[in-house]
């Protein structure tokens, strides 16, 4: 009897405790998600002149034929090319920091500093670093080239250049157009991204994972005379597979919706739209052109891709860990 009264009271307590959070959760997350899906089938526009209409799948159809959408999709994927480099560096650093050395905490702290302070202020700093005439990056390259005796090589103009290492033409996207081969704005953003993230969250995750590897695996390997590379290749790397999988998936998800902040500060999406990513495109459509319906459609396409990756994570991720 007393027990059931307690239970009854618990229901109300449970609801009361969750109420403030749940209210916000409904109002700013759940309802907006459904609302945005519904609105992606409309021409919803915040400008008063446009009258509201349901347009069925037209936004998605238009999107499919929207050249800018495809260009910006390519940009988004291009900027994600830095992710594998970044992960490899994180793993490398985590390995070094897992040795028993003095001063490990100091190294770890300094490596994590860029991640912790990343934001507009740091991007403004990098904008100065990339200045083609007065910036220290080109000054260093010039100095190196002079030492090497090849002073005539043209220095990269970084943020104002549409050149790229794949030689992609900014408008036609034809792989093989060599005139665009070189270092440009996209490489600048990638390099900055690597600097920011290599010693960040992924490195810490790897350090935690490495410390969980049973030490007797290494002891056995040492008795067999395995060198440090063989130990890494046959013990560390396979043992870290679930962590790597998680990091890669999170990197994909983050990369697909990223790039706005960096591009807005460093290049304003240019030159020739080469650093405009999908999230930037949504910003332009929604908050500069006020085409909320169309922007919602782009957001939902992005969401669909991210959802697909999450599904892959659930199916393969759990299998690998088990």
């Amino acid at each position, binding site marked *: 009897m007393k027990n059931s009264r307690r*239970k009854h009271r618990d*229901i109300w307590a*449970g*609801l009361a*405790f*969750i109420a*403030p*959070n*749940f209210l*916000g*959760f409904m109002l*700013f*997350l*759940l*309802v*907006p*998600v459904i609302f945005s899906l519904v*609105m992606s089938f409309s021409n919803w526009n915040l400008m008063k002149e446009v009258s509201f209409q349901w347009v069925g799948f037209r936004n998605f159809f238009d999107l499919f034929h929207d050249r800018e959408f495809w260009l910006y999709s390519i940009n988004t994927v291009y900027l994600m090319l830095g992710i594998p480099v970044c992960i490899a560096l994180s793993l490398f650093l985590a390995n*070094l920091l897992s*040795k*028993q*050395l003095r001063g490990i905490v100091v*190294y*770890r*702290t*300094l490596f*994590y*500093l860029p991640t*912790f*302070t*990343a934001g*507009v*202020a*740091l991007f*403004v*700093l*990098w904008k*100065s670093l990339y200045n083609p005439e*007065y910036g*220290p990056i080109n000054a260093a390259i010039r100095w190196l080239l002079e030492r090497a005796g090849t002073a005539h090589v043209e220095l990269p103009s970084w943020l104002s250049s549409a050149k790229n290492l794949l030689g992609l033409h900014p408008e036609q996207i034809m792989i093989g157009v060599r005139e665009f081969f070189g270092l440009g704005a996209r490489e600048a953003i990638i390099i900055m991204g690597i*600097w920011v993230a290599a*010693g960040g*969250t992924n490195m*810490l*995750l790897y350090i935690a994972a490495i*410390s969980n590897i*049973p*030490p007797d695996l290494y*002891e056995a390997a*040492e008795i067999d005379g395995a060198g440090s590379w063989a130990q890494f290749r046959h013990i560390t790397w396979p043992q870290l597979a679930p962590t790597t999988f998680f990091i890669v998936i999170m990197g994909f*998800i983050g990369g*697909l919706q990223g790039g706005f902040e960096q591009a*807005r*500060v460093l290049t304003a999406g240019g030159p020739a739209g080469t650093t405009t990513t999908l999230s930037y495109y949504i910003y332009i459509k*929604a908050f500069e052109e006020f085409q*909320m319906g169309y922007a*919602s459609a782009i*957001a939902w396409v*992005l*969401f669909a891709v991210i959802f697909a990756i999450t599904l892959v994570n659930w199916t393969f991720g759990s299998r690998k860990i088990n």
Partner: protein
Amino acid sequence: MKTAGKRSDGKGWKKVLIHIGLSGIVLTTVLPFIWMVLASFKPMSEIENLNPVPSRWHPENYPAVFEQIRFARYYVNSFFVACWVTFLQLMTSAMAAYSFSRIEWRGRDAVFKLYLATMMIPGVVTMIPNYALMVKMGLLDSYAGLIIPAAFSAFGTFLLRQFMLGIPTALDEAAKIDGASHWQIFWNVCMPMARPGLITLGVFTFLYNYQSFFWPLIMIKSDHLRTLPVGMLYFDGAYGKQTNVLMAASLMCIAPLIILFVAAQKFIVKGIQMGGVKG
């Protein structure tokens, strides 16, 4: 780390080699910061000088920041918004986490699954309806518009729930027998025990909102309501050529974060390794 320590790490010269390698990487990490500090002390005439060290130290760049833009105001705004969001998010998340981990009620696990499922929704999806909602509620261009939508977090709830599940229930049982209400158990037993989790979440919530850019950029139109990131964007746009003053401003933006980082390092590292904190 302890277990890894048992491995023998080769001979002394190998360790020296690793130290040299690590120092090299530390240098690459730190050099941009050093350059920033040096550049912030250059007089205007030396901005185009390739030598990073100023020939004459020029601390006047720092007061200049406050004269050229309403930097003090942006600072106050950033702290005001980030502190409020952190406080509200910690409260709402901790209460919900208590409900999810300590009270049994019908439908609890279904609601929790709903929370989990929403964590992968990209911010850009909810941004558009939320903006429209703020317009409807008349909160565009106001502090409330910056604070209220950020005061609730599915992620924070998840993190604190995991944390509270790890706290032994023996103490709440004892309190329950003494006739303590749920609020008393929550406030006097659970919250003190969850302190490390609260600090971790608090640090990241503060960081995330101090640096928040997209939402303030679309919400705020008036100069006096701008936060530091948005203020820096317009400062860079208007005075981009004054690298020295710009660097002084950037340095002042990240200085509080460096202090926070050094102070809360232990919690930050643990927090990331515990739950893969975003950002």
